[in-house]
């Protein structure tokens, strides 16, 4: 046997957002955990936007919180401003977004990691994955030649594998914020038979505060009553940092002209490079080309930190040469004298094909090897953190010999995200969108705790008192709804008439329950408190009652859809069958089904290339088998 420095239950490679959650979950669930990362200075780095959340992403952050992850609290504790986007468009698509002080964010996360019992965070680059002759997982090897044995290994290498920085016509090895790229590990993975693909993303320039003329931009303050991601607000997260506003400005025709004139100075437009970039987060040059009929684009200017003079320029990601960036930047209102502190760039990196994974993010091929975050082809801090958490949990369950923890598409955005990754497969960086969730009205950010806290508690990541608080909250919501249904107002009630008048609401003709009254969009729970017998509850309880009552009809529609969805989900496919023998399936379906061996018909239906006609064939097959079984049992 070769020499190993030491042995761990779990080795996490990479201390980005995925790695941090993975390591914390594993250690909190009792695994003796080692985290290896290229630089301890870059733990939980936000290489792009200094903000967390938004539609869908914000919901993910709350789901992470309900399952006992760290991201929500970390963002709350370091928030410079908080804002709910999309209000008025429906509660399913509200998105809390927090601007965090990115330096404070890192500092706090480092503190949490270092103070976590059972976790050691060590600086070292991993250059190889070690397997034995039978392709069983052994551990990892570092740049310095150390070999660590790991019962489980979670790879969270983000955008660092063989990464290259592209700016204008220059294309050199490197990683975000001027560090080295991770070498060796990609080749090691490829050597073990993993297919490696190349993705890209980009970031905008950062500007010196003193050179920005904010008077020419629109002020974007945070919400007056900022919300928190975490369902638990502590002294630490209550509001420590002072509010720092963001600003809004626009590109213009001149900006677009300068960009168009210089497209020949981008490797992506000369045709030399093609790395798949995120369609939903395009560079400014892509936007100018793709939406050529738009004469301006929205741009946000965001603070990077309380002590920092750097401002992030959202919407302005670019891979054009530094001098060109500076020139078109200075055509923007308020940016005429802009001093660039860091130039924008594109980055290319290696990722794996997420379809080789199971729903617990484990390799189908090598037991104990997990993948999480951008290495799986996603983009975004929240998406990474969610996967890290799930991989960490599943590594622990694996070692404890328990069933994997998998969330369905009807339970959580995290379920949608992972199911998309392993079943649909992706061809470009994947960002979580509300439109990816079929049942988003059920997967709201406001009810993430109601959906998931009990699961987090069962896993052992949520403490008793928090679970008890959840039960109490559930109880109050039900009690409140029952109460409202039992209180009937007469149309002659003067209080009612006054309220209707105030809110411009139609006077009811007959007696009406308070529950029915609350269905009216113009009325709130607060309004009902003037009637006798209506108690004041904690705000989060009143909010729940309001949402559940007001959208009941639509919530029921979605619940019916979920029942339909479950029909296919519950039809389990036989294990280890040769789909090749089912000639009614299309060629592509046969190949993919054989490769992915989905668990249920529902999963099969989401594989790209498996058509409804294919599903019908499988359905009939299952039906036939069932009928035959029943026939046999009957005999």
């Amino acid at each position: 046997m070769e020499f190993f420095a030491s042995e761990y239950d779990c080795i996490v490679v990479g201390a980005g957002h995925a790695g941090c959650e993975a390591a914390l979950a594993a250690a909190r669930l009792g695994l003796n955990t080692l985290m290896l990362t290229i630089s301890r200075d870059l733990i939980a780095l936000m290489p792009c936007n200094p903000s967390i959340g938004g539609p869908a992403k914000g919901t993910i952050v709350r789901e992470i919180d309900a399952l006992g992850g760290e991201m929500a609290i970390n963002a709350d504790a370091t928030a410079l401003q908080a804002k709910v986007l999309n209000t008025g468009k429906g509660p399913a698509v509200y998105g809390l977004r927090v601007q965090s002080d990115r330096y404070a964010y890192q500092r706090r996360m480092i503190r949490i990691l270092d103070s976590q019992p059972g976790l050691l965070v060590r600086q070292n680059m991993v250059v190889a994955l070690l397997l034995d002759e039978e392709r069983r997982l052994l551990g990892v090897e570092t740049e310095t030649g150390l070999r660590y044995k790991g019962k489980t290994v979670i790879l969270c290498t983000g955008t660092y594998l063989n990464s290259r920085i592209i700016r204008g016509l220059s294309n050199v090895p490197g990683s975000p914020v001027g560090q080295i790229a991770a070498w060796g590990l990609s080749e090691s993975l490829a050597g073990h038979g993993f297919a490696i693909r190349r993705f890209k993303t980009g970031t905008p320039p950062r500007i010196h505060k003193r050179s920005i003329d904010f008077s020419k931009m629109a002020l974007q303050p945070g919400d007056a009553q900022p919300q928190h991601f975490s369902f638990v607000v502590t002294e630490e997260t209550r509001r420590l940092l002072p509010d720092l506003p963001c600003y809004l400005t626009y590109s213009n025709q001149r900006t677009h002209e300068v960009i168009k004139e210089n497209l020949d100075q981008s490797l992506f437009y000369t045709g030399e490079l093609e790395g798949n970039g995120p369609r939903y987060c395009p560079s400014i040059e892509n936007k100018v080309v793709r939406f050529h009929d738009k004469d301006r684009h929205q741009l946000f200017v965001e603070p990077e930190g309380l002590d920092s003079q750097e401002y992030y320029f959202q919407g302005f990601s670019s891979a054009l040469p530094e001098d060109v960036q500076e020139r078109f930047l200075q055509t923007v209102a308020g940016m005429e004298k802009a001093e660039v502190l860091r130039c924008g760039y594109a980055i290319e990196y290696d990722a794996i094909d997420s379809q080789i994974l199971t729903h617990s993010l484990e390799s189908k091929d090598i037991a104990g090897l997990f993948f999480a975050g951008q290495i799986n082809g996603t983009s975004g801090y929240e998406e990474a953190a969610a996967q890290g958490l799930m991989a960490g949990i599943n590594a622990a369950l694996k070692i404890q010999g328990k069933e994997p923890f998998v969330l369905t598409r009807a339970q959580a955005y995290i379920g949608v995200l992972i199911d998309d990754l392993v079943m649909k497969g992706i061809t470009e960086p994947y960002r979580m969108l509300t439109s990816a969730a079929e049942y988003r009205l059920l997967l709201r950010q406001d009810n993430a705790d109601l959906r998931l806290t009990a699961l987090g508690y069962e896993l052992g990541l949520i403490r008793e008192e928090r679970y008890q608080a959840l039960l109490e909250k559930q109880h109050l919501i039900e009690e409140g709804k029952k109460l409202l249904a039992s209180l009937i107002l007469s149309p002659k009630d003067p209080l009612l008439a006054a309220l209707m008048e105030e809110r411009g609401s139609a006077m009811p003709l007959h007696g009406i329950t308070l529950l029915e009254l609350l269905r009216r969009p113009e009325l709130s729970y607060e309004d009902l408190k003037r009637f006798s017998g209506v108690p004041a509850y904690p705000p989060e309880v009143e909010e729940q009652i309001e949402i559940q009552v007001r959208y009941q009809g639509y919530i029921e529609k979605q619940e019916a859809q979920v029942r339909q969805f479950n029909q296919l989900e519950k039809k389990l496919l036989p294990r280890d069958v040769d789909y090749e023998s089912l000639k009614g399936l299309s060629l592509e379906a046969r190949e993919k089904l054989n490769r992915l061996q989905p668990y249920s018909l529902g999963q099969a239906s989401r594989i790209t290339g498996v058509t409804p006609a294919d599903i019908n064939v499988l359905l009939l097959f299952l039906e036939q088998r069932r009928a035959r079984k029943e026939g046999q049992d009957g005999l």
Partner: protein
Amino acid sequence: MTDFINDTIAAIITAPGIGAMGALRLSGPAAFAAAARVFRSKSGRDFEELGDYSLNYGGIYAGDSFLDQALLLKMKGPHSFTGEDVAELQCHGGPVVLGQLIETLTALPDLEIRPAQPGEFSQRAFLNGKMDLSQAEAVMELVSASNQKAAGLAAEQIEGALSCRIGQLKSRLLNLLASIEVDVDFPDEGLGDAAGAKSWIHQLKQILSDAAELLSAANLGKIYREGLRIVFYGRPNAGKSSLLNAVLQEPRAIVTPEPGTTRDTLEERILLKGIPLVLTDTAGIRETGSQAEQAGVDRARQMALKADLVLYIVDMQEGITAEDGALLQELDKARTLIVFNKMDLIEEDRVEAIPEAADWQCCRLSALDSQSLEILAKHIKGFFEGGKNYRQNQEILLNRRQEEALLKAKASLEAALAVLEKGWPEDMAAIDLKQAWSALGELTGETVQPALVEEIFSRFCLGK
């Protein structure tokens, strides 16, 4: 890894009864091996030597005892009806012989042949890619189509005319949905439709009117499938039954000079100039003392209100009476043709003087005259093609399931419109729009419906 289908099934495929011939089909990997045990070729050749696609004469045996003379049809998969090896045995014997044969086959100790479930041969054809679901559904429609046009429409459906029209509707719906989703998912990009709800409402109204048009086209298709309902209506003795007989060209209804002869409604189907008709003769409308006759009168009235076309027959000897006027009041002008009957009894010089009922569609004929059929046919065809919803070759044929799906889609679209018009959150409209989308998918087979697959095949019978 194991194969999906690895057993062999057998069933009698001819209708039960004392037919001249009976046939039994075996399908599956052991079909040939099983057939070899019971069939001996007259030529004395071994089973394996018989051609892969061949018809062979010989006898069938249970063990060593001879059962009957038989023909063996041997078809090697995948070029067979089910896509598997298929052996069919045809013999003279009725149920007794075939029953014995099935018993023998399923009792073969080493082969495990089992009786097929109803529809299982078709299911295997489907599983082996010999037939797809829409074909299976269309095949059933074809079997039950009552006339050429309906069969033509069913055939067209197999070619995808319906999916094409639904596809157009779906793509407009998708545009609208995308616009809402972009607004929801990218609040920072300013990519959403600046006009917002106003523009969505406009688009949605357009889509709704498309859906309504599709539904009326479907109504037309329905006429082809179910027939144009024509009701013969009018006072007693006007000549309703005589005219029906003239159209049928056979004396189907009893005709007497006695008023009140037809007591109940009588229904007949024919194809007239390619248009399928359901003709209903009714009791004459009048106040009556007889209870039985009164019931018939009430039914007649109801039939007339539900009809696609009412032929209101007037006895020209009497002219349009006050009673006729009252009855006509209840009818819809657009769906009524007044037939002035018994023209043969009107003298030449009086013919011109007959009052035309203002802005009603009319024709004159004599039920007893051989030309009456031609005159009436011309008018019926004219009515059908001049109809509000009629457009040549625009009709589509929907079965009940499809029509329901389209109605469901329309209801969801209407709900979405209400949400937007009331200024409710757009996400609620998105839920309705997605429901409409999925209902349209049911029409084209893009939405998977577990129940449908099971149902389609359960409607096939044993041996199919």
